[in-house]
């Protein structure tokens, strides 16, 4: 099978997966106990007004009508309106998604810069004490729950030392998001808020590229061209970074794409700890207050980020490594 048909087949699969996720989600939210309308409908309302409200959300229609409407809206990226605040869900997503992305991307850049470097070094100095201690650090970083590290960081640097703010993305009274997203991101106040959660996340994500890079280096170092480099009399550092590391980098690229998807999906906890107004925290809050449209919309965004980045990783692999064949 050629490259073109692989791309087509993979794209079809992407669409099918998105449909399946949407359908399962639709089913799950309809099974949820508790009347969603009780959160919008106040008890003082007359029976008539209540009915009209329920009607306006289309919650009285037969299930299949709701399902078809759900799919139609999904294609048009229309997730309905929040039961809670009456805002369109798309607006809510547009508000919170950039916050999550800023946090995740800055953590990722730091994590991969440090992780890859340490991975190259630990693969190169295999069997040394340095290698053993970095591998153990990486394993430890991945074992302690991020939200717990976050709590401890908040306690020591926030509550005890007063170096970092205890919650949120901006201090009160600085205008926050009203000044525009870019203006906000470029303030010192924002950086102060970003520092702690980004560092905690980076510490956690660092372990994965480190371990992958290390084993990839071990594989590359056993190949013949490394011996050729040595025979040519190249400097050790040149061989390490220019020849070995560049060839070992391939698995990192795809792993990073997939990991970024799961990171956005896993933003739930760290955002809750640091009260970071991101999409993961918003999803949890929507689920807890039975705000179906918001919970549904944010979940779909999280899931499609993963699905899409998996797709990108699959395609990238074929372009980056000419040895890959499609079966």
């Amino acid at each position, binding site marked *: 099978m050629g490259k073109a048909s692989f791309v087509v087949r993979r794209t079809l699969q992407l669409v099918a997966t998105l449909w399946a996720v949407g359908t399962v989600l639709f089913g799950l939210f309809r099974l949820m106990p508790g009347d969603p309308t009780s959160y919008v409908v106040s008890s003082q309302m007359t029976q008539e007004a209540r009915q009209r409200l329920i009607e306006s959300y289309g919650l009285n229609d037969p299930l299949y009508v709701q399902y078809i409407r759900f799919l139609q809206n999904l294609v048009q990226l229309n997730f309905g309106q929040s039961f809670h605040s009456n805002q369109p869900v798309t607006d809510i997503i547009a508000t919170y998604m950039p916050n999550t992305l800023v946090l995740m991307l800055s953590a990722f850049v730091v994590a991969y810069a440090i992780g890859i470097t340490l991975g190259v070094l630990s693969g190169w100095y295999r069997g040394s004490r340095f290698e053993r201690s970095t591998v153990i650090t990486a394993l430890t970083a991945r074992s302690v729950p991020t939200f717990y590290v976050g709590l401890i960081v908040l306690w020591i640097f926030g509550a005890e030392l007063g170096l970092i703010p205890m919650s949120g993305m901006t201090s009160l009274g600085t205008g926050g998001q009203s000044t525009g997203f870019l203006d906000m991101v470029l303030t010192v106040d924002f950086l102060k808020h970003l520092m702690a959660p980004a560092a905690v996340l980076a510490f956690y994500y660092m372990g994965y590229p480190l371990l992958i890079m290390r084993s990839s280096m071990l594989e590359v170092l056993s190949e013949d061209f490394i011996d050729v480099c040595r025979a040519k009399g190249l400097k050790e550092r040149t061989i390490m970074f220019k020849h070995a590391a560049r060839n070992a980098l391939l698995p990192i690229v795809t792993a990073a794409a997939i990991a970024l998807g799961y990171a956005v999906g896993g933003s739930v906890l760290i955002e809750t700890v640091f009260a970071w107004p991101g999409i993961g925290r918003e999803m949890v809050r929507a689920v*807890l207050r039975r705000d179906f449209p918001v919970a549904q919309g944010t979940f779909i965004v999280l899931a499609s980020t993963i699905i899409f980045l998996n797709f990108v990783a699959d395609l990238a692999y074929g372009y980056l490594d000419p040895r890959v064949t499609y079966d």
Partner: protein
Amino acid sequence: MAQEEQSSRSIYTDLDDGGSDEEIDKWQRTFRLWRETLREHWGMLTDELSVKLSMLTVAGFMLIAIFAPFIATHQPLQRQYQGEAGIIIEDWAEPSLLGADTEYLLGTTAEGFDIFSQLIYGTRAALLVGLVAAIFTAGIGTLVGLVAGYYGGKVDDALMRIVDFLYGMPLLPTVIVLVAVLGPDLWNIILALIVLQWRSTARVIRSQSLSLRERPFVKAAEVAGAGDWHIISRHLAPNVLPMTFLYGSFGIAWAILAEAGISFIGLGDPNTVSWGTMLQASRAYSALSFGAWWWFVPPGICIGLLVISGFLIGRGYEEITNPKLQ
């Protein structure tokens, strides 16, 4: 691959006692085969110090979980005193370990619960979630992987599309939604984790059994007229068992982490004490700002210790099955 050599012994044992086939029950033979593979790996695994320490840690936690009622000094969910308002207690007792003049080793929570006893009983929840979820995820994943890899074709396609779909679901958000639907109960959290987590085991086991299926000993068994189940259970399964155990031990760690996270968010079982619910309560009463570190530091250390042990055991096992990593 190393497991070829290791498990080749088990494959030959099958041939060796071919003569006594009539006397021994089929099932007994299958189980003996599996046991032999495991015993061999156990010996190699316990050679390494970090693995040995991890196993001791896990064993220690297991003992604590079993004897929790004898170790705990108080009932974990029984208020030790009433506050002025009668419901919420604003103040807490400091730990006697730090020299405070109270009867509570690690102090009490703002709700008036004994922290040490909560910590001890929390071990039960963590191990229950970890072990049950890991056994089921590894078991289901292995079975699906074997069936998909052995039968191939449409069966394989259908099963792998399900796995692909599950890979599209973000772990924590999905568990959160499932728990919200099913209700906050420890067993529902376990169920939600199982529903999602068998995906990785299934994928790995499938690719292993795909290559095993083409090997001469499987072909030979096919020619000799062995049935599908016979080949899967006796020729494929013993060879993929190392991978099953690898993913099982990682599964324990992941499940414990996930349960802690879910409980921390506030969807934990209100009737069970777990380390995650302890952390959630400490945050709800802003123990951070009050500097009551004896409330939120111990549960995190316990989670960390147990999870690191799981990862180290898994990693030790990975090095046995894949010597390239050493």
